[in-house]
């Protein structure tokens, strides 16, 4: 039997990881918040929270709401800005032996380009582009809901960095495959999906929205069926690697995504429920490889038998 390290080794867009289980942006802080609960060096990769050019205070009012088997969040991209990230946070993360990716958000194509440029030589493993942000020049329509806007973000980011670039797709679209093909054609090295579904909750006592921002992003087990479907559809269509996420709570969930074609997965909301989820998913994948007598976890990727 091969050694565990080997079993789970994964490479996505040139980023080498000990295993395919990554921490999803916005749910794992800067990583260090969780260091007391698990060994950060045993995580596939950490995607730090959504970073913008300038510091952002985020949304007012209530920012989260629980929903059946899920949660809504409307954090509003609160973050200290890219300079503070580079100066204060990345140095700490360098002490760990884990690839770190920065998730970037902008309101214009230029902002994305600028962010990529600043992050280029900071020693991070890659950039994840969050295209679910509103494009202020196009009336606030999210970049991620229009193939051309998404493609131009990707092209600009690629032009400004030599780092591997992963584009994170928004599920709030009619045709996820068209989006995936557009960002692939624009040069994205990999795709991650799904970001949150836009949802809402209403307080029937106060007759007000529960969230200060009215709408928020739905995540957690509730969205898993939609995420899995989109990952499967995208994997059929693109050649670049796909990272799947959306409601992964267990190793079994992760395996579903990998069978559907994901080369790696990210764990998001589950970190809140159990900070040791990533560790448990990693262990579960190892056990699965052994139990099914596979040589490595990559043996399951895309092996879903349809008819």
């Amino acid at each position, binding site marked *: 039997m091969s050694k565990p390290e080997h079993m789970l080794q994964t490479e996505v867009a040139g980023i080498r990881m000990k295993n395919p289980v990554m921490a999803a942006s916005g749910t794992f802080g800067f990583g260090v918040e969780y260091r*007391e*609960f698990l060994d950060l060096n045993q995580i596939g990769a950490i995607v730090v929270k959504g970073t913008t050019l300038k510091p952002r205070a*985020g949304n007012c009012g209530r*920012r989260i709401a629980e929903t059946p088997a*899920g*949660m809504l969040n409307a954090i509003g991209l609160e973050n200290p800005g890219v300079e503070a990230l580079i100066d204060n946070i990345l140095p700490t993360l360098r002490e760990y032996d884990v690839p770190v990716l920065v998730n970037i958000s902008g309101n214009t194509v230029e902002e994305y380009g600028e962010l990529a440029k600043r992050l280029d030589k900071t020693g991070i493993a890659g950039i994840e582009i969050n295209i679910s942000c509103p494009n202020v020049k196009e009336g606030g329509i999210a970049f991620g809901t229009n193939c051309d806007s998404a493609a131009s973000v990707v092209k600009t980011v690629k032009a400004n960095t030599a780092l591997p670039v992963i584009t994170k797709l928004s599920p709030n679209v009619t045709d996820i495959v068209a989006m995936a093909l557009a960002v692939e054609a624009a040069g994205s090295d990999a795709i991650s999906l799904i970001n949150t579904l836009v949802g809402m909750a209403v307080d029937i006592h106060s007759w007000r929205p529960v969230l200060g921002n009215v709408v928020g992003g739905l995540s957690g087990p509730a969205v898993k069926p939609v995420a899995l479907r989109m990952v499967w559809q995208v994997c059929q269509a693109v050649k670049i690697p796909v990272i799947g996420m959306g409601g992964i709570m267990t190793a079994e969930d992760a395996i579903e995504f990998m069978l559907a074609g994901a080369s790696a997965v990210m764990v998001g909301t589950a970190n*809140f429920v159990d900070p040791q989820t990533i560790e448990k998913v990693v262990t579960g994948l190892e056990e699965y490889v052994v139990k099914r007598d596979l040589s490595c976890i990559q043996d399951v990727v895309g092996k879903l038998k349809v008819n």
Partner: protein
Amino acid sequence: MPKLIVKATVVRHTNLTSQVKQLVLQAPDIAEQTVPGQFVHIRVADCYEPLLRRPISISNVDRANGTIYLIYRVVGRGTQLLARLKPGDLLNCMGPLGNGFTLQGERPLLVGGGMGLAPLVYLAATLCPNPVTVLMGGRTEQEMFWTGIFKSLCENLHITTDDGSLGQRGITLDLLPELLKSKSFDMIYTCGPSRMMAGVVNYAATYEIPCQVSLEEYMACGVGACLSCTCEATNGPRKKTCTEGPVFWSGEVVL
């Protein structure tokens, strides 16, 4: 103070009112580490409903027995499930979380309202043998099981109820000016409804007494990773209630 995830054993579970319960948990590692003002983040059920943990203040500690005390009100599904626990059951708790109160001053005043009194019990117990004064408010006598709890810990107990069924009729803030005038406190701690805390902070400023407030925010992670709980700071970026709080100096945050 490392943060832990433990399977705590329910030792005792008692009704304080029809809606408020006290839960005693065997959790020696948490009991060992914790200081007043901290909380535990509880996974009330091993399923997705509810999905998130529930933050509950540590309302007292018995280090000798390795137990922690929680006092909570049953308000929704999470606390309803909590209310079903029986002695011997296991409960998944993360903690101790958050920053506790700064223990300083020789003549402290504690001002609490409603469930905000929970962390003040542990604080009062820790501040002894300094003479502790507690000003507490509630809606009605039935809710004031707190007096029984605080009596053994404090020299002076001042009580208001909305309906006058116990102590003075009115709200805590009504009694505060007189109290501040008549005695010389050197530290004020407050926890409860934000309107009450804002009032306390005002008086504290007037009388130039240092003051700490303990905030409540909706929390997902409890460890500073999700930013669901940040509150407005008087100065600089927002602060995380879960890790930089829940206890803040009155001057740090906007109530």
